[in-house]
């Protein structure tokens, strides 16, 4: 029972970590709290669903979701967020408006009814005390790969160096000849693309509605904040931690109160360590 809940928690937490890394990336460079990210995840799910239904291919589904969301990231940055870079709180309020727009559009296009999908891998391995659903292994693998790629790009490439420079001090970075705007745009595109991958993973759980966004938004932010905004390793660890805690709480205490545990825990942690457990940005001022 315990081992099973821990494994379920890891599978759950992997998605949170993926979304949180996207949030952290956008925040680290633009200082904007992008609250519409939950709706981006939801859009990713629906695009994957559409493509899979049309072509019957899961691979195409995940590729389409990632690419479509990358385009969405580009458009939102170019269309709105670029004009709010000087006042990040404005960007935050803008993203609240985008939540209404994205969710409304999804209901218009796909209706409010749930859409169902079969996961590409069926069945499970039975290890006695732990039953491992094959699809969750694939999902965890994809998340690990995405996080590894993100980490590699950020820490080992010239482009990653530019990203970190802008995150540290965008003015100094601009003076060194780094194209700051381009780098920020890249962060939006990458963050949104990660949301697309997360959307596909959520679809493999079975069903989606236009309202799934809020759930992942809140957990993604809980993870990003606990890990420390702007901190990728922190986000990955906090994601796993949250997933395991949530799964254990659901298994041993009352599952209906899950949201309350998650947020009460987040509030407590932030009151104890105001910039997250691993330390991160301070947050823009109002």
């Amino acid at each position, binding site marked *: 029972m315990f081992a099973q809940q821990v494994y379920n928690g890891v599978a759950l937490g992997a998605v949170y970590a993926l979304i949180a890394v996207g949030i952290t990336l956008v*925040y680290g460079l633009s200082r904007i*709290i992008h609250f519409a990210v939950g709706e981006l995840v939801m859009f990713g799910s629906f695009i994957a669903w559409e493509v899979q239904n049309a072509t019957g291919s899961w691979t195409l589904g995940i590729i389409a979701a990632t690419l479509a969301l990358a385009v969405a990231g580009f458009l939102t940055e170019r269309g*709105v967020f670029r*004009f*709010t870079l000087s006042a*990040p*709180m*404005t960007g*935050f*309020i*803008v993203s*609240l*408006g*985008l*939540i*209404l*727009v*994205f*969710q*409304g*559009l999804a*209901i*218009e296009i796909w209706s409010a009814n749930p859409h169902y999908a079969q996961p590409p891998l069926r069945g499970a391995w039975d290890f006695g005390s732990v039953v491992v659903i094959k699809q969750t292994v694939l999902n965890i693998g994809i998340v690990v790969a995405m996080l590894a790629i993100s980490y590699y790009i950020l820490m080992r490439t010239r482009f990653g160096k530019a990203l970190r420079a802008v995150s540290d001090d965008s003015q100094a970075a601009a003076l060194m000849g780094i194209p700051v705007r381009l780098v920020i745009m890249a962060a939006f595109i990458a963050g949104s693309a990660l949301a697309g991958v997360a959307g596909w993973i959520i679809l493999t759980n079975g069903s989606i509605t236009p309202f799934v966004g*809020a759930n992942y938004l*809140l957990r993604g*932010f*809980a993870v990003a*904040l606990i890990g420390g*905004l702007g901190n990728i390793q922190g986000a990955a660890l906090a994601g796993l931690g949250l997933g395991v805690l949530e799964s254990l709480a659901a298994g041993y205490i009352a599952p*209906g*109160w899950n*949201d*309350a545990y998650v*947020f*009460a825990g*987040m*509030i407590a942690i*932030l*009151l104890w360590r*105001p*910039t997250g457990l691993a330390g991160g940005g*301070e*947050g*823009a*001022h*109002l």
Partner: protein
Amino acid sequence: MNGNSAVQRFLPHLGVLLVGVIIFLLPNIGPTGKVLSLATTTVIFAVGGAGLGFLWGQAGQLTLAHAAVFGLGAYTAAICGKMLGTTFVEALPLSILVGAISGGLVALPSLRTKGHYFVILTFAIGEVLAVIEQRWDSLTGGANGILITAGRQTVLGFTLMRRAEYYQLTVIFLTVVSLLLLILTRSRWGTILRGMRENADLAASLGVNIAKQRLIAFAIAGAIAGLAGQLYVYQVQFIAPSSFTTQTSIMFLLVTLLGGKAYLFGPAVGALAYFFLPELFGLPPITNQIAFGALLVLMILLAPEGLLSVIGRTRRFFSRMRTRSRMTHELEAREAAAEKGGQS
């Protein structure tokens, strides 16, 4: 001279009363039942929005738990009415008190966190409250909510169950709240709040107890939200957790921003636009949601100070144009005169 300055001093207060009287008289022009109930909703959300407008515009503090506090006020009134059989008047101090306390509680994290972290914390607090509303079945009725009825109650001579009379009662509350906020805004304390908004460190260095003043501002906004919550319950006579979600908080934000957070009647104008525009255009609810989302984005990018600021700005623009055209006229006249002088 003395009388004149007294009149000038209380001109804004008289203005608030005048606006109150004008909207109070709405039932006299014979609106349809639908318009009347929309107008009541508008007034109730104008009350709630006024609290947020005060907090955001004066103290510079943004909260996403406003809908949750509003909901707590509503639940207080409904639960007291259902379980203890309290009347509207008996429940009112309780709703306001619960609103003030929970509003103050929301402010507590601001002692430790700043900026984005704080805003997201207020959001998380709102979510926790929503879960409690949904899961504490024995008290809140869970997802099924609570049905209440005002029966034959009258307050100040207004029968709660009569639509027109309930509307007028809410207008009285709006006027009282607006007057109180006007007095607070113009008081010394209002100046202190604005000082904290502009530069908290500087205000602290001048001896302002930032934490305490901020707590009081949140409690006041919470009390107003609690009051609005009770007004809301007695209007729709039913509550469920689904009425107080993030969407409602975003709606309060939109309403406040739409009218202009720095203006006393900003949230009222915002609420008017929010509830009557869809009716005017006859849009289906989902299209509406998209339109309002887009409107929120456009407003904050193009006119972050709200619709009321647009009026001020156009007036300034025209007065500038007038000055300019007067000056060009004068200049032309002078040049013409000079030319004539040169010729002769």
